[in-house]
């Protein structure tokens, strides 16, 4: 059997002019749908003096107002919903800037569209019907597991819904069922690789041939390590819950940037300070507009990822525009063990628990895993002379942070005034990980 090269060849290799025409048609419809059904965005458009009649195609995109993460907080929980709730079949969720989570809604159409995007990513990584796909992303509110799971179904692969953690079981299923494609965070792939090596497996005896790794930044060096240890080709994948989930863009066999699924998501690069669109090839903030989503169709959503787009032809045959790996953030969001964390979320917990807002976050890497330490000053009135009471406070604060963030830091209480005050904007984060090339 000849392996297929594309999941949806006609769309994935569509001539650029045709893609743009398709995008224009979809954009006009999408703007009408949002204007009609999302009062919050209608107000934003009205304030800017734009109506759906002003939008004739993608050349008019710049006229539309941006949506920022703060708008999603403002409209929580259903203010951005564009269809009746009864038409929705699923939610997914991600952390927001101040603890209030972002909830994204999906109709069956939206799920199908998202699954298709993930199916394209899987086929681009060499997966086909006879493959066994081990999905070791978390399942649940996090989009990683459900997204790749759905994509794998679409391709017709045998899907192992492993979710994250329990490395022993991961290895057992991988080797017993001869998994050929692994989907997880790059950190976890590296960790699995080390564990397999310890158990005597080599690149030759590990059944995997490809991996799709995303949800956190990783370097070329990490890619090479993972490829060598697991004996696979490692593919990058990008996405965000606000837009759908993983599969907004994905790497092909060229491993030279991620093709954006342009028939569904229109990408722009803007100057993060002025909001002005930048010409192709310039570095700036990535902005996405959903083109044919029903339930949660965000228009001009500012991702805060700093990125570059390229329309250079790709030898894989796909014509869709490619984005470079994000090179950083234009806000203070951190990605820790694949989870989005904002310093403001940590502040909110500290204040609620009676601590001062003087704290320090230290991020590092140990055994291919992120270390996450939070140093907090103990208010004098909370000091008690027994070690037991101080460590109990550390533990309960760590638990409160885990509840808020979804991942647990190690909390260290320190005496007041030992955390350095800096002039002006406080330096809250020391990130010693090397995440970008």
């Amino acid at each position, binding site marked *: 059997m000849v392996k297929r090269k594309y999941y949806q060849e006609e769309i994935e290799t569509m001539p650029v002019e045709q893609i743009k025409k398709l995008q224009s048609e979809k954009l006009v419809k999408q703007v009408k749908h949002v204007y009609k059904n999302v009062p919050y965005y209608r107000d934003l458009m009205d304030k800017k003096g734009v109506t759906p009649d002003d939008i004739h195609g993608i050349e008019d995109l710049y006229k539309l107002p941006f949506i920022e993460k703060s708008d999603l907080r403002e409209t929580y929980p259903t203010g951005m919903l564009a269809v009746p709730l009864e038409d929705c079949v699923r939610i997914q969720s991600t952390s927001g800037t101040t603890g209030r989570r972002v909830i994204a809604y999906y109709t069956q159409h939206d799920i199908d569209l998202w699954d298709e995007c993930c199916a394209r990513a899987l086929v681009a990584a060499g997966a086909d019907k006879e493959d066994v796909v081990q999905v070791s992303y978390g399942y649940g509110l996090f989009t990683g597991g459900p997204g790749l799971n759905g994509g794998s179904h679409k391709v017709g692969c045998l899907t192992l819904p492993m979710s994250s953690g329990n490395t022993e079981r991961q290895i057992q299923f991988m080797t017993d069922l001869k998994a050929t494609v692994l989907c997880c965070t790059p950190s976890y792939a590296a960790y699995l690789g080390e564990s397999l090596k310890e158990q005597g497996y080599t690149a030759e005896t590990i059944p995997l041939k490809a991996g799709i790794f995303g949800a956190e930044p990783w370097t070329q060096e990490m890619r090479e390590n993972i490829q060598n240890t697991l004996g696979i080709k490692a593919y990058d994948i990008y996405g965000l819950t606000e837009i759908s989930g993983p599969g907004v863009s994905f790497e092909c066999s060229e491993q030279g940037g991620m093709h954006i699924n342009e028939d569904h998501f229109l990408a722009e690069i803007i100057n993060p300070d002025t909001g002005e669109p930048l010409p192709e090839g310039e570095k700036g903030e990535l902005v996405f507009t959903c083109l044919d989503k029903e339930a949660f169709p965000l228009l001009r959503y500012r991702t805060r990822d700093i990125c570059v787009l390229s329309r250079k032809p790709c030898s894989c045959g796909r014509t869709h525009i490619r984005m470079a790996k994000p090179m950083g953030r234009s806000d203070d969001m951190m990605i820790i063990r694949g989870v989005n964390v904002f310093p403001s979320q940590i502040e909110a917990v500290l204040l609620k628990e009676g601590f001062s807002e003087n704290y320090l976050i230290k991020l590092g890497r140990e055994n291919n895993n992120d270390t996450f330490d939070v140093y907090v000053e103990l208010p004098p009135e909370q*000091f008690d002379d027994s070690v037991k009471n*101080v460590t109990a406070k*550390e533990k309960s604060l760590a638990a409160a942070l885990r509840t808020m963030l979804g991942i647990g830091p190690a909390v260290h209480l*320190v*005496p*007041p005034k030992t955390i350095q005050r800096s002039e002006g904007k406080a330096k809250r984060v020391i990130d010693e990980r090397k995440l970008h090339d």
Partner: protein
Amino acid sequence: MGIRQLSVFVENKKGSLHEITDVLAKAGVDLRSMCVADTSDFGIVRIIANDPQKAKAALDASGHTANIREITAFAVPDVPGGLAKVLSLLEGRGVNIEYMYALITSEAGKAYTVMRTDDTEFTEEILRSNGIEILDESHI
């Protein structure tokens, strides 16, 4: 009754203890006993001093976290098994000891000990009713 103990919360790093003792020296505070409990992050320095109020004021003024609490101090005969006997009394009544350390003794034949338990009043009552001498600040 009992005696007042000063506790100081410090970072577990080089020089922390010296800094504390230096502040107290400059304030003219005389130390009678000291004990340090530490974890990898922080330490708690417990001090019995001649003037705990003055010591706390000096530490507060220099930006340290200090507090004062009353703890139990008692004298036991300085013979093998002297302390064990006291501890068995407390254990028998279900009293938990948080920590304990020795004081400098000015009286021959006696060992002075300070301890914090989960119930100070009850502890002192047990000790007293068993003829164990409870110390107050005039002893130190």
